[in-house]
């Protein structure tokens, strides 16, 4: 076992450095920027971000004169502070002020997704909303109200806070959104990254190094080393991309989208995200490496990548279909079926705060990844290396634990 891991490390180190120090890797890191650049050039990015469901909208529920004042104040201050500094503001029910519902019901029952509702007067503004949104909007509202009241004033009115607990129903919806966002990110990353493993053994096979490797170390080590090298490379990519995304959103965008806190809390959710990404990646990479290893040429690998991507799509649809049906058979199936399990379980983490079933899922997924790897190695030895079947040592569980 120790020897297998040592040899796997040798293989992984070679692969990783070969990738990192290649020019192609630079373009790999830049890859996700291309769509962004196109969008920026089209000039629509800002607008689309504003229309996005996630950007907060402040509902202004004041009498007409005051409302117009504050809108004007927003307009003129935006010239100084930049167009994205203040959240978008919408006037609510100007025509029929008395017939307005109370701010609280407006928050929950409205076509527009208001983050907070501003009511009261410019001297005594009242802000209604959930804690998170109140904190982020309080200062700007104070500034806007003060400025609207008297442009010269340096004293800002005190904003009265009217905190509203999110209704259970709404929180559930929002957590589903977090879960789905997690699934989409997870799926995107595994689809983009795991497919690269398909062609991973073609180089060794075409330049005959496979013979040197096979003579020196167990084939398990070759597979494990290659998969983990790609996993580490994927993490390098993810870290670079998320750093870029974070900086990009902070500088040009409206900041990090304000997703509702998942049921297990952000730290655990993110940790689980990393683990489930690794598991999902390891399972698919084992499968793809096994399939790719059987291919004789690069052309065959290219042909194989299509069904491989389709398989991932199917898995994704199963998972996304079950995501909003917590506890129903389809969701249970998605959580248990190994390939969709990481996606479905991440969605669960957003919605339910039970932790032990993640432990079981992770162990199950790890064993499944190991099983696929073992099958891939055996198939490779049997069909490609043309290894015989006789005189084999008794292999214990997957062979990995058999050799000391």
């Amino acid at each position: 076992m120790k020897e297998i891991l040592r040899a796997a490390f040798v293989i992984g180190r070679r692969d990783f450095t070969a990738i990192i120090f290649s020019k192609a890797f630079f373009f790999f890191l830049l890859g996700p920027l291309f769509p962004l650049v196109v969008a920026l050039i089209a000039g629509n990015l800002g607008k689309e971000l504003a229309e996005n469901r996630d950007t907060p909208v402040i509902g202004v529920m004041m009498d007409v004169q005051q409302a117009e004042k504050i809108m004007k104040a927003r307009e003129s201050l935006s010239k100084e502070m930049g167009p994205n500094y203040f959240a978008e503001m919408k006037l609510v029910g100007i025509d029929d002020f008395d017939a307005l519902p109370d701010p609280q019901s407006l928050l929950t029952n409205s076509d527009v997704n208001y983050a907070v509702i501003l009511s009261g007067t410019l001297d005594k503004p009242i802000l209604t909303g959930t804690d998170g949104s109140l904190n982020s909007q309080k200062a700007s509202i104070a500034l806007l109200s003060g400025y609207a009241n008297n442009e010269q004033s340096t004293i800002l009115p005190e904003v009265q806070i009217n905190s509203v607990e999110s209704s259970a129903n709404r929180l559930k919806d929002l957590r589903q959104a977090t879960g789905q966002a997690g699934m989409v990110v997870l799926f995107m990353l595994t689809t983009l990254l795991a497919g690269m493993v398909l062609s991973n053994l073609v180089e060794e096979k075409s330049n005959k190094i496979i013979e040197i490797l096979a003579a020196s170390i167990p084939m398990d080590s070759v597979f494990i080393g290659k998969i983990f090298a790609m996993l580490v490379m994927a993490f390098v990519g993810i870290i670079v991309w998320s750093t870029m995304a974070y900086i990009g959103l902070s500088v040009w965008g409206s900041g990090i989208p304000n997703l509702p806190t998942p049921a297990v809390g952000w730290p655990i959710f993110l940790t689980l995200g990393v683990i489930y990404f690794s598991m999902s990646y390891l399972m698919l990479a084992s499968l793809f490496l096994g399939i790719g290893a059987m291919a004789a040429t690069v052309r065959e690998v290219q042909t194989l990548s299509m069904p491989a991507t389709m398989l991932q799509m199917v898995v994704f649809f199963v998972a996304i279909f079950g995501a909003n049906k917590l506890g129903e058979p389809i969701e249970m199936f998605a959580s248990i079926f190994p390939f969709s399990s990481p996606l479905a379980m991440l969605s669960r983490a957003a919605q339910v705060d039970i932790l032990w079933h993640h432990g079981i899922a992770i162990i199950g997924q790890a064993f499944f990844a190991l099983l696929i790897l073992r099958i891939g190695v055996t198939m490779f030895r049997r069909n490609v290396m043309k290894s015989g079947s006789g005189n084999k040592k008794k292999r214990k569980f997957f062979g990995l634990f058999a050799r000391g």
Partner: protein
Amino acid sequence: MNAIEARGLVKIFDGFRAVDNVDLSIPAGSIYGILGPNGAGKTTMLRTLLGIIDPDEGHRSLLGSDDPLSQSPYVGYLPEERGLYQSMKAVDTIAFMGALRGMALNEGREKGRVLLEQTGLGHAADMQIKQLSKGMAQTVQLMGTIVHDPKLIVLDEPFSGLDALNQAKLERLIRAQAANGVTVIFSTHVIAHAERLCENIAIVANGKISFDGLVETARDRLRPQVHLETEALDGTWRKALPEGTEAEGNWWHFELPETGVEPLLEALIDGKAGIKSLSIERPGLHDAFVSIAGEAVAAAMDEEISAGELL
């Protein structure tokens, strides 16, 4: 102790018996040649013995272990089809091959530099494999094969593709390793290489081993050849010549009789044959090979060699 032992080894590729019931004992500390024409099953036999592939039947042990890969740190193997990572530096390639066999990477780099200096490739240490000539790349691979000081070195057709100068270099390297007590096994289809280098050989044809033992023993299977030139063409001494003697003018060619050379000489002198010249030649490995593997196999090998020379 035997470096390699095989009993009843069988390897079948799609119904074709590439290795057919092979028994083999390769003594430790010797230079051992595996001799046979292309397609005889030499490579498959080596791959099976090294544990790259498992046999379909039979049993093999490498350096006393049933699990050949467990002996990896003590074994060096140069495959028949050479190949390296093209974008890797020469010295890193050697270090990587050493690391596969359990060596630390830095140690492998240092040793690799020394080895390259010794073979006159010091200037190429930091060059990528794709920048090297084919011969240089082969040398790099050979250095990678021995960088970890293996106890057993297996070379599959190491001389093919080398010019005469590099063949001589390789022979020196093999001798030097053997002098240090390393077991060197190589396969070849050129009898001369085996004859010059090996103490022991195995002759392989059609997946079977037709001979396994000392080169001496192989040669001793044939009687020495006597070439005799006489003044007289006939006399009582003619009776001393064995059956099957070829006559060629005043020349007589025949196998040395079992009784030895003395009775023959006495008969020749007493019978006044008038010996003008007499030579007794030990048969070469080629003759032994013909007698062991058969005319057809030997002819196939000769063809390969001349075809190789034409190329």
